[in-house]
């Protein structure tokens, strides 16, 4: 019974062509990013080696050494702030680790690009796509005045809502899958280098300004790709659940999407302006960038870790889920 409802909801979303819209957005952005990445790589090569080789055979160790040297130079500049000093130091140590362990972080490959794409889009772009999907889930029924039809059927209200929620979960997973597939395909064809079995180091831990490499393990790019995309998947579910709650609370699609976008973008500003205020680390939009904990990049707010962020996001997700169901089953529907 529930499965039939879910199927119905999935079909409803698909018939609105939103998946198509999301696919087109992703297609355009991924192509642009991949082109940009390729261009940037060629530029880096030109800058450091003053030669471009046709084959993928590039002396990346040389490049890496030069980059470390450049970072050291930057460290010596007098106008540099303490916090960027810390982050540059971490970068230097990380580059040195790659060099010492013979891991090539420079040559572009499909796997590396896809990981980078998710790392970059996890805090804004991916949530936006998710909001696009989830934002009108319930309030769309109000706008279209179809909510009466939905609720007069002999199905308990919670089942109606649950079927909508499960339908969204299914589509979130498919969005993540689609993103991975698109970026791997496009970048793979462009770079002509898949690189799934290249080693990559993860588990860096930046502790008070220095990089703790004691926990670093080497995995293949493919494994790392799955790690990063699963973080993206988790973030999508949390953002989707919150967006779902908002769509239950308000009666208008535009308001629902607007509220979510404002929180999301506002979260980025909070991070900039209120980095010293410890309470902001409990805000969900601050915790979206989960892959940063795997790469060990410097986090400006202390006391944040993958476990911490996961717990915060989980709490927000569960809270939003409960609120949605309580409100939806109790509210009066007057249409």
């Amino acid at each position, binding site marked *: 019974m529930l499965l039939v409802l879910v199927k119905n909801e999935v*079909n409803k979303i698909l018939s609105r062509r939103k998946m198509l819209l999301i696919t087109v957005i992703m297609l355009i952005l991924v192509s642009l990013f991949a082109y940009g990445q390729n261009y940037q790589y060629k530029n880096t090569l030109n800058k450091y080696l003053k030669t471009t080789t046709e084959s993928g055979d590039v002396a990346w160790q040389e490049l890496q050494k030069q980059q470390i040297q450049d970072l050291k130079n930057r460290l010596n*500049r007098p106008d540099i702030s303490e916090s960027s000093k810390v982050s540059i130091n971490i970068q230097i140590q990380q580059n040195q680790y790659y060099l010492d362990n013979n891991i090539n972080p420079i040559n572009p490959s499909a796997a590396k690009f896809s990981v980078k794409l998710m790392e970059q889009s996890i805090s804004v772009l991916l949530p936006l796509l998710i909001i696009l999907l989830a934002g009108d889930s319930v309030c769309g029924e109000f706008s279209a005045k179809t909510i009466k039809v939905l609720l007069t059927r002999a199905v308990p209200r919670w089942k109606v809502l649950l079927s909508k929620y499960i339908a969204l979960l299914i589509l979130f*997973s*498919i969005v993540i899958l689609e993103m991975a597939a698109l970026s791997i395909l496009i970048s793979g064809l462009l770079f002509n280098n898949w690189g799934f079995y290249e080693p990559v180091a993860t588990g860096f831990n930046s502790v008070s300004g220095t990089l703790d490499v004691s*926990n670093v393990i080497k995995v293949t790019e493919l494994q790392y790709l*799955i*790690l990063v995309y699963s*973080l993206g998947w988790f973030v999508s579910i949390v953002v989707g659940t919150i967006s779902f709650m908002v769509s239950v609370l308000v009666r208008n699609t535009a308001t629902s999407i607007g509220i979510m976008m404002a929180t999301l973008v506002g979260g980025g500003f909070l991070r900039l302006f209120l980095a010293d205020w410890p309470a902001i680390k409990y805000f969900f939009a601050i915790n979206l960038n989960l892959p940063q904990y*795997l790469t060990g990049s410097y986090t400006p707010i202390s006391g944040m870790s993958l476990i911490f962020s*996961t717990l915060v996001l989980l709490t927000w997700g569960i809270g939003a889920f409960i609120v949605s169901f309580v409100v939806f089953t109790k509210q009066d529907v007057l249409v």
Partner: protein
Amino acid sequence: MFKNLKWKLILLLFIVSTITLITGFAAALSISSRPPKEISNTETEKPKSEELDQNYYNILVLGDSLAKGTGDEKGLGFSGYFSDYWKTKTSKEIKINNLAINGDVSSGLLSVVQEPQTLADIKGSSIIFISIGGNEISRLKNMDITSSTTKIKDIEDTYLTNLKSIFNIIRTNNPSSMVIFIGLYNPFGKELTSDKVSILNGWNYQSEQLVSLDSNALFIPTYDLFKYNTQSYLAADDFHPNSTGYEAISNRIVEALKNYK
């Protein structure tokens, strides 16, 4: 029929991706939550250093921004112009390793040459360029000499001890390479009062004395080269040489090494 197939495909994709992603998420959590191991484990591991490829004619550049080539619009630096000429002297392809750091002083260079990778580079290089001391003495311009003569003496003494240690390290690792030390010039022109100019010249003299103790090293003076040429040899920052200035330094090195090897 078609709709049913699509639905089944969607369900299948959902189930497969969910299982994969849950596993991945669990793995990510477990990776980042492992307690840090004993730090001593990693510290005992010495970073590996790589030996230079002897199929190349290796040139090593050490020191400050002057060695780096800062100010050169063409980005070559004196080592770049020099290697352009030196191509004719060797059958091998020339490779420049530039380890210079902008703004570095002698103590910084000392710690650079103690790094294992630098030591490996020293071992494999046929020519080693050093330019250092400019950042120590550039403070001179705004110093009140009468009250701080002792301070300048202190700076000079530490500089000379550092330079001595740097030469020692180079020679214990590579007794045969040509070491070329670039002297200091006065970028400030007439702004530098004559008593300060004499300190600069004294500094250069001390460096030259030290370099001349080594049988296979060369001191390249630049003070005279820049004295009446600051207008055309200095970059827009009025401190670093521009490409013409670097080329002039390089020409002087080339001249000195005309009959070397």
